[in-house]
């Protein structure tokens, strides 16, 4: 039996590590990658398995680098030193706190944050990301390739917005918009527009 099992899941790959040595893992992965390079390219990969706990961080780093070398992206880095939340897959979560620098949320589903996302904080979700506060950090919506994902924030001023496989940076000279904004993909690129309350409810509000 192979020391690494490769499974597909939600547009991504899961590598399940069985007990073995780092050399066995590297040989096995190389063999699988070489056999069909184009099969792996572009997929995000998650590491799983009890055997991972026996690896040093250098060894894990080597495995991650190997994956990156063959064009894979890393969905869930195995170290869990930072604050990191992994909840039940596929469901949406509401995070009722502010994410500070260095904190990271990775979630399979949509993420709603009741608070700010500070600079150098990260939110990665397989669907939409909605921030009811200031968004200054890095966000990646639709991280497994869902192009219909959106990023919405009351103050959208991130370092970088990533949706599916697209990356966009706000122009450095644009003044911050005081209104809620939404980033989305259209014709293959990321656009940002002001998020307006639908007409009907606005009329009601003014009456």
């Amino acid at each position, binding site marked *: 039996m192979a020391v690494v099992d490769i499974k597909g899941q939600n547009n991504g790959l899961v590598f399940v590590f069985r007990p073995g040595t780092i050399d066995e893992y590297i040989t096995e992965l190389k063999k699988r990658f070489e056999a069909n390079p184009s099969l792996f390219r572009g997929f995000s990969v998650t590491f799983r398995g009890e055997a991972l706990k026996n690896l040093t961080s250098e060894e894990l780093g080597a495995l991650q680098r190997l994956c990156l070398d063959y064009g894979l992206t890393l969905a869930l880095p195995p170290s869990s030193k930072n*604050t990191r939340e992994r909840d039940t897959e596929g469901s949406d979560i509401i995070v009722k706190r502010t*994410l*500070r*620098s*260095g*904190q990271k949320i990775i979630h399979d589903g949509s993420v709603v944050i009741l608070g700010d996302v*500070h600079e*150098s904080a990260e939110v990665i979700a397989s669907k939409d990301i909605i921030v009811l506060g200031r968004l200054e950090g890095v966000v990646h919506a639709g991280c497994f390739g869902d192009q219909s994902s959106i990023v919405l924030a009351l103050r959208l001023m991130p370092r970088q917005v990533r949706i599916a496989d697209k990356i966009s940076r706000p122009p450095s000279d644009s003044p911050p918009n005081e209104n809620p904004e939404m980033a989305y993909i259209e014709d293959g690129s990321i656009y940002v527009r002001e998020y307006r309350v639908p007409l009907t409810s606005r009329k009601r509000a003014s009456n």
Partner: protein
Amino acid sequence: MMEPSNGGQVVVITSGKGGVGKTTTVTNVSMGLAQLGFKVVAMDLDIGLKKLDLIMGLENRVIYDIVQVIEGECTLRQALVKDRRFPNLFMLPAAQTRNKDDVTEEQIKNLCAELKKEFDFILIDCPAGIERGFRNSIAAADWAVVVTNPEVSAVRDADRIIGMLESAQFQDIKLVINRIRPEMVRGGDMLSIDDLLNHLCIDLIGIVPEDDGVVISTNTGEPIILNQRSLAGRAFYNIARRFAGEEVPFLDLNHTGSLWDRIRMFFSKQVG
């Protein structure tokens, strides 16, 4: 914050970034608390890069250090250095020839539990960074003070540290803004107190203006709090009073415009 849990309270003074004034804050606030009549220990956990002894002006009184206490070479009482100005103020020096891996969180907890029986406040001078030294420093603390400067690099590190303290289940985290220059804030060249509070979202416990006297006091080992005419000294004294649970109003630097300038000029003439 102020309720004493089985005796004294352990407070860690931390920042993430180096050079923002952790040791200066520990020195002056512990001295202020001693002035207010509390029994205080200032504990240096920057093992390998100690400076609390220097800034407190007690360098040549150090005989034993914290690692020797932990390793059983001396007793805790032998290692505590008594301040020459306040009989109820003590300092526990770090070892310069050792490093942060030589002590464990458990050992620091035991040490603090011992000190809590006898002292009202144990102030821990935390090393810069987020590694072993930081984890050791926060292990035994009841609450935390984060020191920052009004500049983006210090604020980002403070944000990171606050996040880590929150993850470590700290309920009570207070902010000291050090080295603020009101005239630069007014000119729009420095982050304002409001900017900082807006971003970091924690309670303020002190605002300390930039003061050349701090450099001088560091060199002479006479903490700035002993200088009654210094604004920074008064700010540190106010922090000590807030530690003790007093409600002390903040110096309102935003709206004191010309008055502030006049006070500054007055004092700079006086102090020279």
